[in-house]
């Protein structure tokens, strides 16, 4: 083989035209940005659509849907504790303040066995306080604030909006991706952040609602302030990680309550 031919072959070996020269990492980032942009857009549009539809929904339909959603009961203690009895006494006063809460549910209050500090409302209006929360918080005004916060979620129909948005976005994404596994996984992960942010906004609105309620009932919001100061001490998490949390940081919430 002559030298010229050998050099030609060496060139072919070293300069491969069959493999793309572009950076895979760069391509990956561009693609991911594209998917992220697309799914954020879908979720915001779905959220917007769901909010409009849910806000216009009649109370009768709301109750019907909520009944259908609450098939599985949540485990709770049978015997109401002193704190639950206290909450049951405050409840009618809070419900009386808002027309949106009238005639839909009795809003029964239960205590769960969980050790973590939490309270939540089921789609049928049942309110659950964890054992951990009731153990730490005894003050009536603070408990009233938490109860009002949960009732605010119900009054704002947050649970239905969330479900509606998930359904609409889920359908659009399924159609677009044709059930592709990787795309679904990525979209699921990315929208998790988006959903959390949406929830944080709902939480802030619920906080403001609850703040208005306690101000009307007691003329002050010291209970709410104490509660967030307590949470601040309890949850010593850096602000950055709270982007991934469903609730805004206690510092942020405390500031909001103090300003209103």
């Amino acid at each position, binding site marked *: 083989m002559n030298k010229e031919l050998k050099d030609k072959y060496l060139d072919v070996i070293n300069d491969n035209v069959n493999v793309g020269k572009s950076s895979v990492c760069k391509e990956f980032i561009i693609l991911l940005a594209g998917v992220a942009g697309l799914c954020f857009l879908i979720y915001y549009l779905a959220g917007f659509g769901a909010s409009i539809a849910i806000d216009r929904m009649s109370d009768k339909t709301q109750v019907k849907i909520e009944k259908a959603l609450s098939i599985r009961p949540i485990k709770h203690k049978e015997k109401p504790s002193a704190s639950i009895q206290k909450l049951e006494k405050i409840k009618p006063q809070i419900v009386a303040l808002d027309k949106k809460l009238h005639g839909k549910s009795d809003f029964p209050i239960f205590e769960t066995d969980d050790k973590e500090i939490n309270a939540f409302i089921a789609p049928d209006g049942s309110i659950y306080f964890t054992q951990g929360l009731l153990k730490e918080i005894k003050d009536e005004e603070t408990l009233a604030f938490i109860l009002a916060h949960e009732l605010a979620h119900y009054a704002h129909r947050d649970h239905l909006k969330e479900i509606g948005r998930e359904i609409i976005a889920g359908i659009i994404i399924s159609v677009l991706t044709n059930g592709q596994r990787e795309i679904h996984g*990525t979209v699921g*992960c990315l929208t998790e952040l988006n959903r959390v942010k949406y929830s944080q906004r709902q939480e802030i609105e619920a906080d403001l609602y609850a703040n208005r309620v306690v101000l009307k009932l007691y003329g002050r919001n010291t209970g709410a302030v104490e509660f967030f100061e307590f949470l601040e001490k309890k949850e010593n998490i850096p602000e950055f990680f709270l982007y991934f949390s469903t609730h805004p940081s206690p510092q942020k919430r405390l500031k909001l309550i103090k300003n209103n």
Partner: protein
Amino acid sequence: MDILLLIILLGITFGTGSIIEKNHFKKIRKREIALIKKPIVNFGIKKWDSSRKVKSTKLVSGEVVISGDYFKNFVAALKNFFGGRLTTFESILDRGRREAILRMRESAKDANIIVNARIETMMINDTYTGESVPQCAIIAYGTAITYE
């Protein structure tokens, strides 16, 4: 939690995949340069005219099964949505093809020429279920001829 797991998995597989690919290309280049003189591979004509006397003929083949890593498959799946060149798979296919030819040539080191060489590819996984990763089998075969 899911997103963290995904990032870790993508990061690890990108790192390992890049190292493996770089090393593989390095080895391929080295072996190709070592085999630059013989045997010559003839892909085109089925009949070849030679006045030289043939000592022996032999069927030679080189096979390779190659798969993309998690990162490459992930990028390809995203690309599948928007469309365009699947550059992550191009390098895999190139590696597989060159490796198969090299194996074929290495199994006929004493031969002068490999005539009528062919390359065939096939997917060895079930591509319809969408559950498995793309795995490609590449087979290169031809007739090795040794002159007297």
